[in-house]
């Protein structure tokens, strides 16, 4: 029976846009990069959502499976009905985070890590990715050349005409204060900060539930973060 969750999901315009009746042809799964390397089937997710069953949706929002998609949106190109399972996933993840369901799955819990890295970069520097926080020890796959860039960032960027942390326009310039302020207010007024808070709040609850507690009874988020980072 369609209930509150389905209602929530179907209110998102990306859901309207992403799903008109699926005919289960499997064209999306056939080329889905995630379906190849994870136990993942976008077709069956769409079928589940289409069923609208409240209990099944709840399970889905708490499951690992909604976190496998890489949002490449290759599914959109091929769907003979113009659907976009990747967009349906975006909506499911949104609702999963708003309701706290994401902390029930290992992959879902990782949202905290992304908020604390990319989210922080955006608000602090105005960039999603920033040289000063792309630490080689957290990114050994970035290789020896990146380590060199990281360790000599100012000289390296300057040598190729960059303006790293400089004033005015140019590559990797410092985003002006007024611009950053506007960005912050946008996050504040459009629910961006609220989402960060939700992720934090539900993660804290989960940390307590798992027994990561400081002496003053607060959740120990440092330990929890390490736990989430290393969970297999």
């Amino acid at each position, binding site marked *: 029976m369609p209930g509150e969750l389905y209602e929530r999901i179907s209110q998102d315009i990306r859901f309207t846009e992403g799903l008109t009746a699926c005919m289960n042809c499997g064209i999306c799964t056939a080329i889905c990069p995630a*379906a190849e*390397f*994870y*136990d993942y089937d976008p077709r069956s997710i769409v079928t589940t959502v289409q069923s609208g069953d409240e209990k099944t949706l709840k399970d889905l929002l708490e499951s690992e499976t909604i976190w496998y998609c890489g949002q490449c949106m290759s599914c959109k190109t091929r769907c003979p009905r113009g659907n976009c399972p990747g967009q349906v996933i975006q909506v499911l993840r949104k609702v999963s985070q708003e309701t706290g369901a994401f902390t029930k799955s290992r992959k879902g819990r990782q949202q905290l890590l992304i908020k604390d890295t990319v989210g922080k970069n955006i608000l602090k520097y105005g960039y999603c990715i920033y040289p000063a926080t792309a630490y080689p*020890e957290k990114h*050994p*796959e970035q290789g020896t050349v990146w380590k060199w860039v990281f360790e000599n960032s100012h000289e390296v960027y300057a040598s190729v005409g960059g303006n790293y942390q400089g004033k005015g326009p140019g590559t990797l310039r410092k985003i002006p204060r007024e611009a950053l302020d506007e960005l912050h207010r946008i996050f504040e007024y459009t629910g961006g900060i609220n989402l960060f808070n939700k992720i934090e709040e539900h993660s804290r609850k989960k940390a307590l539930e798992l027994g990561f507690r400081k002496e003053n009874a607060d959740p120990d988020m440092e330990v929890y973060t390490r736990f989430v980072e290393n969970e297999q």
Partner: protein
Amino acid sequence: MKDLDFLTSTPSRQIDYEKFDTRLLDSVLENETSFLTCMSCGGCTATCSAGNLTNFNVRKIGLMLRRGEIDQLSVEIEKCMFCGKCTLVCPRDINIRNVVLLIKKGIALLKTENILS
């Protein structure tokens, strides 16, 4: 390099037709030609006694056989209770019970030949 230990090449989940092991399928088809005509309707699964008690799916047994997934098949096939209801309901009159039997025999044979662990 130790710092890259966290990375592994993930095996593909893709069914790769080039890597099929068709030995079992060939032997089943030779002895039970009716299996050729399965149209995956699922009638067998719906009535299956074992399927009502476990996650056994007799239609998928046929698929695994066709896709050469012998390892998985050898585990799943053990769940069949040989009640034979599947054979009764099959709209194409396939002797499914015999198909299952042939699969078991075939697997036993492969095991004795040490091809399957």
